[in-house]
């Protein structure tokens, strides 16, 4: 009985730990989008120049129609958006938000919406990313392939 309880407890601990690891170790791809967007019949124009800093990293500068991608790890991160003037000299507006992607994977942040102080600035990530070149796979029963031992081919 005691061992049953201990085993169940251990299992629960491992499960919780796994969920925890999943939670804190999850990498989120954050797309920063600075495109004109239609929302509820309104059109939000792309910002002229915006500087975005995610999770305290070096800021990224986006021009209109730019879309950039970076990766953050962990359940939450700080976002600092500085809307700049056309020439990237003066900060017109600073927005700071804390985002909690939690268990979700990727997200896209719309700069125009953010600049408009709307709360629906988190968009689903774009689909169909560029594929790496295909490598063909053939099954093999060669359990023991000698490293670099293939002889030269014609």
């Amino acid at each position, binding site marked *: 009985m*005691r*061992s049953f309880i*201990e*085993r169940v407890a*251990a299992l629960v601990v491992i499960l919780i730990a796994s969920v925890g690891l999943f939670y804190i170790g999850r990498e989120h791809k954050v797309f920063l989008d600075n495109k004109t967007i239609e929302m509820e019949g309104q059109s939000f124009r792309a910002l002229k120049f915006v500087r975005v800093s995610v999770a305290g990293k070096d800021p990224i500068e986006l021009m209109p129609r730019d879309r950039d991608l970076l990766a953050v790890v962990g359940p939450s991160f700080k976002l600092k958006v500085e809307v700049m003037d056309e020439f990237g000299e003066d900060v017109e507006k600073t927005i700071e938000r804390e985002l909690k992607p939690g268990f979700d994977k990727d997200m896209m942040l719309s700069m125009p919406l953010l600049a408009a102080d709307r709360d629906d600035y988190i968009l689903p990530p774009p689909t169909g990313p560029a594929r790496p070149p295909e490598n063909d796979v053939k099954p093999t029963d060669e359990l023991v392939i000698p490293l670099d031992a293939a002889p030269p081919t014609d």
Partner: protein
Amino acid sequence: MPDMPLLKLENIGKEYFGNRVLADVSFSLKRGEILGLVGENGAGKSTLMNILFGMPVIASTGGYEGSIFFDGEKVNFKSPFDALDVGIGMVHQEFSLIPGFSAAENILLNREVLNRSVLENLFTPRVSTLDRATMNTRAARAIETLGVDIGVDTIISEMPVGYKQFIEIAREIDRAKTRLLVLDEPTAVLTETESQILLEALRKLADSGIAIIFISHRLQETIGLCDKLVVLRDGRIVKEVPVKDTELSAREIASWMVGRSVDNNPAARGRSSSTGETALEVEHMWVDMPGETVRDVSFAVHKGEIFGIGGLAGQGKLGIPNGIMGLFPAGGVVKLFGKPIELGEPRAALDSKMAFVSEDRRGVGLLLGERIDWNITFTAMQVQGRFLKGVPILGKFLRLRDDAAIAEEARGYIKSLEIKCTGPGQRAVELSGGNQQKICLAKAFCLKPDLLLVCEPTRGIDVGAKELVLGTLRRYNEEYGTTIIVTSSELEELRAVCDRVAIVGRGSVAGILPATRPPEDFGILMMGEKIDA
């Protein structure tokens, strides 16, 4: 109830496949009492112990009759571990020790003292570490009880044989609840002094209240040690006597062991044919057969005679024919009709027209997976080049197996030896023990030997087949004048079929007697006593 017996057997009986091996065995044993159990090989001692210990072989062959009471309660053990649980310990003939472990580790094998571990509930108690200090103390205490001086750290493989026996016993002593200890031939591997120490230790154990069943072939020892003696013969108790009150002689016990009342004793054969020439001469032969070591034997067999070799198991009687046939490393001189035979080379023995029926039917005697006719003719084909026929043009260069002739030969033996089978094509493994033995005989006959060596011809076969096999041997001897050497553990069988019987003890010939001599004489030779020829 202090007077209640610790162990009580009531009417124990057992049959193996219609063969009765035990009948109506009853005796009891009190605390602190030492009971000596003696009997010939095959008298039923091992079966009795197997029953007592709940060995699986008993249940799988139909259980046993009668009942066993331990400490007043009826018991029926399912496995030897059940017997251990109530406090019956067993010391086996063959060592069950781990060679690379120390004395302490072996004494406490699977009963190790453990430190408590936080992980033991999570996984198994087996993840706890060993408490070696406590283990060593306990082991040392057990060894001390025996009165010997063996270091607890000594590795088993580096110990002399005698010490190993003490470790085995110490293991049983260490079990806190051991109340009955069974020892099977514990002194067989010990020197005189070691035996003495052991016997004293056993006495001490008994005085501390442990009951002991002592199985031994050394009668003097048994008489010296035991309070009570039970003699088994043919699965029955023939004698149960207290030792201390009466003056028993080894000779008396031996006669109980082998003696049979005259009326059920088949007539001994014992033709005297010593006038003929000598067929086989063996001088100072030694044979390196595991468990049946032959140290130094010399004897001569007359032409046309049936010569018996008897003796207790492990004394070397089986080593003699196996050595002559070259199956085990051997030395000394063996001459067949005056011609020396090269030892250690089966082909040499076969070439000089000797044939052999092995005691190990399934291991040596048969090609279990092959056809009957192959089994019978294989040796003749290999040694004498028979059963081969030439291919029409290539006759000289390519000779093929003559399957028709092989089958024909087999049919002949199937008929004459009454082998029960579906035909010469049946595989040997599918036959019963008796029929397999007949095939082994047929294989030997097929060689048309001058000298036939037969080991344990009736081992493991039923009564009817026994008669037939022995009859065949006698007939073959009479018809062809073939000299035959029969090796058997069953003295009666030897006396019935042989002219003279040699008894082998401790690797050499204890004596050769005409088969007509009374069985007690042979029994005394087996027990290692001297007798006038």
